[in-house]
């Protein structure tokens, strides 16, 4: 028995683990390190030297405002998703008796639909002579078609639409595990429905809310497809500006510096919202 244990835990199998580790190092850690080093290098004809000029170059109001805009959009989108998703997840997990499988199917399906198809489906509604404009004109609400495409509103609606399922699913998973007898006990013991919700259900589903919030936050922050197709090119977001640097301007060093600047600001914003959410959900004691 001891010998078997020894074989099982011995180092000889370690070499089969290396391909995965090498793969991830080669295509994730090395590229990130590369970007990081490139953002500090001034490349001359012979050799390179350390410099901060790339960071100084991008550390101005025009760049900061792009990051702030993306952060604002990400925070707004994650908050709205959380507020709308919570009742849905709660209903699916706690109230729904029949048709649960169908509801779950339609909740999972958006993850498996090509994201471009998601975005594209909005074209029919938002375009100049699309369905929303036609409907509003038929109803006599507006005389001239609204410019719905290429606007911040379009970006916000489609982001909300695309990322809402990412919020519902983690919330549903956590609420599903919640012991329903706790709610019954709380109501039995004379607590009101709202008291039970704020002091029992909400704190217990805290981790689901948090993971959904951060997931939507990070995804919205780095989003490229939606602003590039529906943002009209004039309003830049982090995702579109990074791709400008790498594909159009072809300035890797400044692009890398901007990438790390926005990543740094993202981490700070995430930490800030973590503190805020913790206060909001757990602070009510």
């Amino acid at each position: 028995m001891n010998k078997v244990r020894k074989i099982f835990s011995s180092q000889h199998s370690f070499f089969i683990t290396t391909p995965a580790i090498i793969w991830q190092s080669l295509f994730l850690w090395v590229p990130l390190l590369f970007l990081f080093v490139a953002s500090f290098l001034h490349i001359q004809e012979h050799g390179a030297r350390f410099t901060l000029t790339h960071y100084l170059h991008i550390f101005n109001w025009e760049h900061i405002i792009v990051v702030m805009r993306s952060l604002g959009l990400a925070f707004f989108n994650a908050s709205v998703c959380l507020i709308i998703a919570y009742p849905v997840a709660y209903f699916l997990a706690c109230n729904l008796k029949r048709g649960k499988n169908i509801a779950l199917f339609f909740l999972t399906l958006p993850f498996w639909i090509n994201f471009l198809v998601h975005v594209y489906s909005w074209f029919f509604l938002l375009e100049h002579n699309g369905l929303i404009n036609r409907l509003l004109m038929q109803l006599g609400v507006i005389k001239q078609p609204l410019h719905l495409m290429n606007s911040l509103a379009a970006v916000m609606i489609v982001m909300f639409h695309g990322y809402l399922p990412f919020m519902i699913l983690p919330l549903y998973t956590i609420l599903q595990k919640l012991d329903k007898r706790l709610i019954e006990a709380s109501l039995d013991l004379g607590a009101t429905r709202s008291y039970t919700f704020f002091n029992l259900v909400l704190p217990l589903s805290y981790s689901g809310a948090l993971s959904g919030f951060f997931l939507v936050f990070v995804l919205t922050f780095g989003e490229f497809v939606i602003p590039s197709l529906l943002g009209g090119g004039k309003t830049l977001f982090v995702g579109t500006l990074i791709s400008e640097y790498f594909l159009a301007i072809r300035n890797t060093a400044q692009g890398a510096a901007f990438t790390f600047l926005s990543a740094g600001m993202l981490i700070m914003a995430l930490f800030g919202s973590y503190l805020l959410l913790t206060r909001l959900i757990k602070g009510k004691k």
Partner: protein
Amino acid sequence: MMKPLHYKRFFLPLFVAAVYSFLYVPMLIMLIFSFNKATLGYAWQGFTLDWYKQLLQSIEIWTVFKNSLIVATAAVALSLTLGVALIWGLNRRHQHILSLFYATIMIPEIVISVGLLTVFVFFQVPLGLVTLIAGHTLLGLGFVIPIVHIRFNELDRRLIEASLDLGASMGQTFFKVVLPFLLPALIASGLLVFIISLDDFLISFFCSSATSQTLSLYIYSTIRAGVSPVINALSAVMLFSSSILVLIFLSLSSRLTQENS
């Protein structure tokens, strides 16, 4: 005593129904328009299957579809093989290495994409299907390893010991005991990686060449010019195939959770 208000009971279900219809109405409209005769504009001009015919006959779409399929299949095969090898080979003391792979999903994909592009350009690796496979396999590992790892932890270690005790080699133990146990998790995560690779836009956008366009890139470049009826038909077909994959995935994962409880 006042009777409780009745409409309150209907508020939550109605709200949920509204959210669900919000999620699906745009796609439903797109589905309907894929059968519309009109080339441009949004007036209904009668039923047609022409766009589906055009879709099937389009050489360009078949080419990008083939590219996508090659990349997705390779990414699934590679990430499953590498992931399973890592989990099987890693002993208990080195479990923390796995947390490295959980990091992939936490880094914004655009950062990974520009990083990959920079490295490929620096080492003069020609962009193409190979670079796409490299990137998609990386994404895939971030999903395969967590899913398969959870399943592997549920395997009773005494089964492995018993198998080794009774004279099976490590290889036999792996293929006869461990692999069958992991199978549902492998299929589920394989499907997930497949669809992630098919869906992926950013890595494909940065790390592909003109000759290695994928389905997502094709859709992107077409719809930049606006609505296109052939894309409607393509979207409808993709919607349909996604639904089937979801059904398989859900039935697998419900079986996984049933076994656990």
